[in-house]
């Protein structure tokens, strides 16, 4: 990190950061050409052809599904008759599931707004551009902060009896913390987890959470938003 900072003052020479390819060559060294051209291919026909293939495959799948799977149409809208349960579109069912646990202001406003802000803000936090594993440095203080924050979250979920969220969060946090205790170079799966960065853990938690809530909201909620088993 400190090495990179030196160069950042001037004109970027790191192409991963600055797309403007102006290369400054110092007097004492000659240009290093690393055969970048070899890695390049023409978009036409390579990309174009692959895109056409992608489009064809997509169309094939869509047309076949459209032939055999009819879009549902229920009865005429009737403002006097609420179906039980009244469900939002599936991609909002995670949110609706949250509304079941938390007060509307939290689940309906705070959490979605925080998610959007979080997503927008991701690239502007220059904390860990290199994707450094979570437990690579300052291990013990990081563990303390990590566990503290996780516990606060777990308490919050516990207070609202959001057990599905509680359990998922606890498992993911446990997996993250497991990397702290596992020495490097063990089995490949554990090594994989150990080498994950904090942003990776956060995003993974978010995705798994969203999937689980959406699945619960879609399949496991019946009349009165009560728990039902979809196979019954």
């Amino acid at each position: 990190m400190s090495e990179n900072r030196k160069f950042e003052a001037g004109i970027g020479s790191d192409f991963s950061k600055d797309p403007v390819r102006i290369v400054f060559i110092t007097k004492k060294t000659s240009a290093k050409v690393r055969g970048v051209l070899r890695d390049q291919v023409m978009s036409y026909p390579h990309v174009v052809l692959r895109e056409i293939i992608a489009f064809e495959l997509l169309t094939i799948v869509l047309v076949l599904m459209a032939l055999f799977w009819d879009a549902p149409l229920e009865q005429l809208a009737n403002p006097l008759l609420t179906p039980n349960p009244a469900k939002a579109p599936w991609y909002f069912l995670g949110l609706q599931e949250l509304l079941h646990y938390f007060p509307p202001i939290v689940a309906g406003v705070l959490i979605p707004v925080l998610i959007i802000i979080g997503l927008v803000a991701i690239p502007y936090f220059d904390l860990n551009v290199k994707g450094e594993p979570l437990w690579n440095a300052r291990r013990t203080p990081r563990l303390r902060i990590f566990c503290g924050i996780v516990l606060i979250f777990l308490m919050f979920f516990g207070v609202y009896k959001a057990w599905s969220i509680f359990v998922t969060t606890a498992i993911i946090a446990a997996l993250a913390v497991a990397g702290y205790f596992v020495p490097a170079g063990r089995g490949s799966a554990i090594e994989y987890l150990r080498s994950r960065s904090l942003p990776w853990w956060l995003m993974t938690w978010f995705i798994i959470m969203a999937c689980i809530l959406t699945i619960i909201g879609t399949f496991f909620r019946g009349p009165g938003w009560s728990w039902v088993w979809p196979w019954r």
Partner: protein
Amino acid sequence: MSASLQSTLKGFCNNRVWRSIFRRAPARTNRTRSIAIFGNLFLHALPVKVREKSLRVRATYYLGSFSFFLFVVLTLTGIMLMFYYHPAAPKAYNDMKDLRFVVSEGIFLRNLHRLAAQAMVLAVFWHMFHVFYRGGYKPPHEFNWVIGVVLLLLTLFLSYTGYLLPWDQLAFWAITVGTNIISYIPILGKPTRFLLLGGHEIGENALLRFFVLHCVILPLAMIVLIALHFWRIQKDGGLTIRESDERK
């Protein structure tokens, strides 16, 4: 026979009219290939050259392309469906019945539209997660990531506004639940909902507003942002190649 065919084809492609439209010879050299990209309004969303590694399926899974193609499919089928759709209650619902039962290929188009809409939400989400895990948000792609997030929200909103249009129970109550979430926003919630629905409850006004949003405003915004998104990929130096890819 093949010789005559060849000459016919040559004659077909080698006249002034053809060349006035395409302005180039068949792309058999790298120069003509470059021209093919540069000289085409649609293709010049692509860079002339790309890194070979970014062609690998694992690099993108073509998720961005799929999202875009789905948008194209949705636009085409959506325009077709609009020929038989009246944004009025309960006519809108009867139109769904007509599409289902009397319009040739009506149900097929509606299925396609609905499937593509669901698939697009999935594809856009997946695209975002994939880009995240590949570190595609990192500099210099920060702003394109933000555009992507906005495109995701637009996709969701497009799908959501389309949900009301069949005017059936599913549509009506899904939108009721959804718009009531909005009203929990402090201070702004109720007025936003009022504006969105054009009233206090879901009725003809809401249907018309959702129709206009779904068919005009949101698609236009989407097209502009998609263009920006594509353009930024080029200007930000192409797709992200991870160091792990480089090493191989």
